[in-house]
């Protein structure tokens, strides 16, 4: 391949087993890729079909008892071929020392079937290695046999152990790295690892994080730099996301209530699993807030108005909410004047924060809004001190306009351009809910003269699909309308599923309107490709596995009553009963397995590549 200009010219020499080993770049030579003879024998003694990648890491890697272990002898080991049932893409990374230690505790079978080489090598092994060997052998005796799901080739110094782990043990002991990108984060996250691995130990793993191909002048230099600017423990804590308000924590809720502008009555019967999420009696806040409209001092009227619109549900949809919020902030910045004896940067940031907390009281922020706010705050913080107040304000207002134009409006257009290429004549496209991007895609494809049919799937209680349907039918598209209950019947005819998303998280999970996961799973079962359309500014580096820990609760009355149908009154009088809990979730999380493709402003990518976009373009998005 031709290395593009930003590549180092001898890039192709990077022979490291990139996906698996956290090695630094090492120069290409025959020696680095062939296994040394001892290893080879063991490799061949494997049962056929079970492949193990062993990559020698030249990086010095002191164990916990670093003094006794020769640094360069440790080898990092990764298992690549996993048994079925475990995701084949998953790569486990572990520390040599960690295994040796854990091997004692966990039920591990050590096959030391090479006594000859072990004996001959015994002279060379250091004290620590011998101890590890003994420990492992002891463990082997205790270990139950036959549970081996995965084999790990562990080269520790010169001696070679074949260690079998059960899956649980691996989960407990190792750091599952879904993707090599998150090596450093992964080690941080795993408590088991961080207990054993000292901070000195995390350093090489971080340094070894395969630095992106993009900016490697020389990879060694890059890794040194990364190791160098590793944040001290304190800063790292600061980096960690602020714990979200847990609404089942009584004392904190009380405190928050005192500060709150909006007086809300909490709903009484909340579902057990979802008590940490805020839920209020709907319809109680609005009249109260409306009366306060003129007496509210700290809030800017534009922000107040937007907050009320969120509350009443007049503005909904990720992009619409984000744009409305930014327009309100623009108004607020326009009318802003720095109070005497205060600096603009600090005071304005505080002001924006208070606006944001007001908006949160009206309705929890969406992830896209969170990203947008982060952008704005960064812009404020980065303002040069020399700027006069009016200049600073106009710069900020321009930035806001730029964000709305580039990150929302323009990127929607790009997504439409990409997505239209996947629509062929005769297709039957299914969409769920009402996504603004999907609507644009469908209309654009129609304008291009493609012949296709649309199935709009909708669900109670919001029935947003009807709005979409109305607009599509007006433009002359042939549509079918159905509810999510019938999705498994209608899916047989469908050739593509287009979905919008509130956010795409870095493990590829799509966080979207409740019901999306269901539609995606049915489509997957019917082998229909699922295309998720999402602007890149909505991507978030968080990882979420379920839709419980972070979600939003809607009005429970919306599901207990049906508007306009008085005869359905089975729940009348029961709503306030202690033993009835109503759950109206707003979002759900679709696992990445059910997503064939994410269409974003950077093109069409598999859901596994979302973290790459987040990593590479974070800077562009927020800190540019």
């Amino acid at each position, binding site marked *: 391949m*031709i290395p593009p200009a930003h590549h180092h010219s001898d890039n192709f020499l990077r022979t490291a087993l990139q996906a698996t080993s956290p090695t630094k770049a090492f120069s290409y030579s025959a020696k680095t890729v*062939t296994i040394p003879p001892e290893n080879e024998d063991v490799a061949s003694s494997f049962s056929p*079909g079970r*492949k193990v990648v062993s990559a020698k890491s030249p990086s010095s890697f002191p164990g916990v008892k670093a003094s006794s272990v020769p640094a360069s002898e440790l080898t990092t080991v990764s298992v690549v071929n996993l048994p079925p049932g475990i995701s084949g893409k998953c790569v486990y990374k572990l520390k040599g020392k960690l295994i040796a230690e854990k091997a004692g505790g966990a039920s591990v079978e050590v096959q030391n079937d090479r006594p000859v080489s072990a004996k001959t090598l015994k002279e060379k092994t250091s004290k620590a290695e011998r101890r590890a060997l003994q420990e492992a052998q002891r463990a082997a005796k205790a270990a139950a046999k036959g549970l081996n799901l995965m084999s790990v080739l562990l080269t520790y110094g010169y001696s070679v152990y074949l260690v079998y782990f059960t899956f649980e043990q691996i989960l407990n002991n190792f750091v599952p790295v879904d993707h090599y990108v998150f090596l450093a984060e992964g080690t941080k996250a795993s408590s088991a690892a961080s207990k054993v691995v000292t901070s000195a130990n995390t350093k090489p793993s971080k340094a070894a994080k395969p630095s992106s191909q993009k900016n490697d002048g020389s990879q060694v230099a890059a890794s040194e730099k990364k190791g160098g600017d590793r944040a001290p423990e304190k800063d790292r804590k600061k980096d960690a996301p602020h714990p979200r308000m847990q609404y089942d924590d009584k004392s904190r809720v009380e405190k928050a209530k005192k500060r709150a502008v909006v007086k809300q009555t909490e709903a009484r019967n909340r579902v057990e699993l979802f008590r940490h999420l805020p839920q209020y009696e709907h319809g109680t806040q609005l009249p109260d807030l409306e009366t306060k409209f003129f007496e509210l001092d700290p809030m800017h009227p534009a922000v107040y108005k937007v907050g009320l619109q969120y509350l009443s549900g007049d503005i909904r949809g990720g992009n619409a909410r984000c744009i409305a919020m930014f327009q309100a902030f623009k108004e607020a910045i326009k009318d802003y004047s720095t109070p005497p004896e205060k600096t603009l940067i600090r005071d304005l940031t505080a002001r924006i924060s208070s606006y944001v907390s007001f908006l949160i009281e009206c309705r929890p922020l969406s992830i896209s809004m969170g990203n947008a706010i982060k952008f704005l705050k960064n812009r404020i913080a980065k303002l040069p001190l020399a700027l006069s107040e009016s200049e600073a304000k106009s710069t900020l207002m321009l930035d806001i306009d730029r964000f709305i134009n580039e990150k929302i409006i323009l990127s929607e257009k790009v997504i439409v351009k990409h997505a239209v290429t996947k629509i062929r004549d005769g297709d039957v496209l299914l969409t769920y809910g009402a996504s603004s991007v999907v609507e644009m895609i469908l209309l654009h494809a129609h304008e291009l003269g493609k012949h296709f049919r649309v199935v709009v799937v909708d669900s109670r209680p919001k029935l947003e699909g009807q709005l979409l349907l109305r607009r599509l039918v007006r433009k002359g598209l042939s549509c079918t309308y159905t509810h999510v209950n019938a999705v498994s019947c209608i899916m047989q005819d469908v050739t593509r599923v287009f979905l919008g998303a509130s956010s795409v998280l870095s493990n590829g999970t799509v966080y979207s309107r409740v019901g999306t996961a269901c539609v995606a799973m049915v489509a997957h079962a019917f082998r229909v490709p699922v295309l998720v359309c999402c602007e890149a500014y909505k991507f978030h580096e968080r990882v979420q596995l379920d839709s419980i820990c972070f979600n939003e609760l809607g009005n429970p009355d919306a599901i207990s009553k049906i508007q306009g149908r008085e005869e359905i009154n089975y729940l009348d009088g029961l709503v306030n009963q202690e033993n009835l809990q109503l759950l109206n979730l707003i979002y759900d999380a679709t696992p990445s397995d059910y997503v064939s493709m994410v269409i974003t402003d950077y093109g069409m990518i*598999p859901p596994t590549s979302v973290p790459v976009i987040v990593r590479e373009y974070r800077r562009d998005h927020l800190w540019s």
Partner: protein
Amino acid sequence: MWWRSASFILDRQQHQNGTVAPSPESFLLSSPPPMADSPLNPKSNISAYYQTRAAHHAVVTSDWLAQAQAAVGRHSDDDGSLGGDKGAAPIGGGGGGGEEGSGKAFSVIDEFNSWRKQPTLAEAVAAIRALAAVIRTSEATTMMELEIELKKASDSLKSWDTTSISLRAGCDLFMLYVTRTSALEYEDFNSAKSRLIERAEKFGEISCKARRIIAMLSQDFIFDGCTILVHGFSRVVLEVLKTAAENKKHFRSSHCFNTEGRPDRTGLRFSNELAKLDVPVKLLIDSAVAYTMDEVDMVLFGADGVVESGGIINMMGTFQIALVAHSMNKPVYVAAESYKFARHYPLDQKDMSPARRPIDFGVPIPSKVEVETLARDYTPPQYLTLLFTDLGVLTPSVISDELIQLYL
């Protein structure tokens, strides 16, 4: 009615075309298409990429050849390199394109075709060399002009053969390379131009080197006594197995199963090559894959193109072998050079521009029977274990990361 002849197809074509005089391209496997003649791909329903492949790798039996020669007796003077005789294939010569360009009107497609005839040269590299020749013959005086000219050339190349993934990838890579060379802005135009040409020339060597790197990297995965199933003919896979045969003392005890690779029977040719290396080979018919899979330790494929999802586009039959291997928990490895990575994301099998290829069934097919002539299929990433590339051994999901870093 067992007509095992090229002339049969020729006759049928003649019959179908009625009055149209048969051209040498109208018979199928035995002839490399006379590509240099026409600026547009004359047979849009037959993939040029697979025609070249067939010319380079397919086995052509002697009776075929004889009949083919006889059938085109009147044309035989102009195609001496007929019948996959690769030794006699015309070698385009180092600066040949440039010199020709000064003589007659330069055509990037002619240039590309002359490079393409070299059996060792990958299609992407041929495209790069052709584009380098464009730079060489260009009379542009500014970088912008040159860029526009190149863009046109690469577009015409891409539209000439829309079915070739690696051609597209090669053109894209080269365009990227030209537009992103920031150093060029500080130099004068002529030295920048010569540097571009120089680096394009290097690319051919890189492509060979890439194969070496892949072969070295993959040695860790080929253990003594293992049995490998390969499909069709792939230069990279051949290199991998060659290196394994050279390096490993005990590799001789292992087997290579080889599918036949219908319809152009590239597998036969591959087994010939392996036999030359003294590797024990067993030839399978394509339909015996599932039967043999339990004896197989790993499956090794080449690839026509590696797409953004991490899946591969390869010769027809790859997907079903991968499916069988996946269901029997055998690892599926893919050896592919990084210049085959393409920014292309098929959602399913039909989501590609169709590459057609003639199929000889040996017996006449009634006209009412439709024949599936598509030449390739798409293997989704979940059926692949690892990809051996010159960038390292990658999981399928990393392909997209590399592409994003390359193109964005």
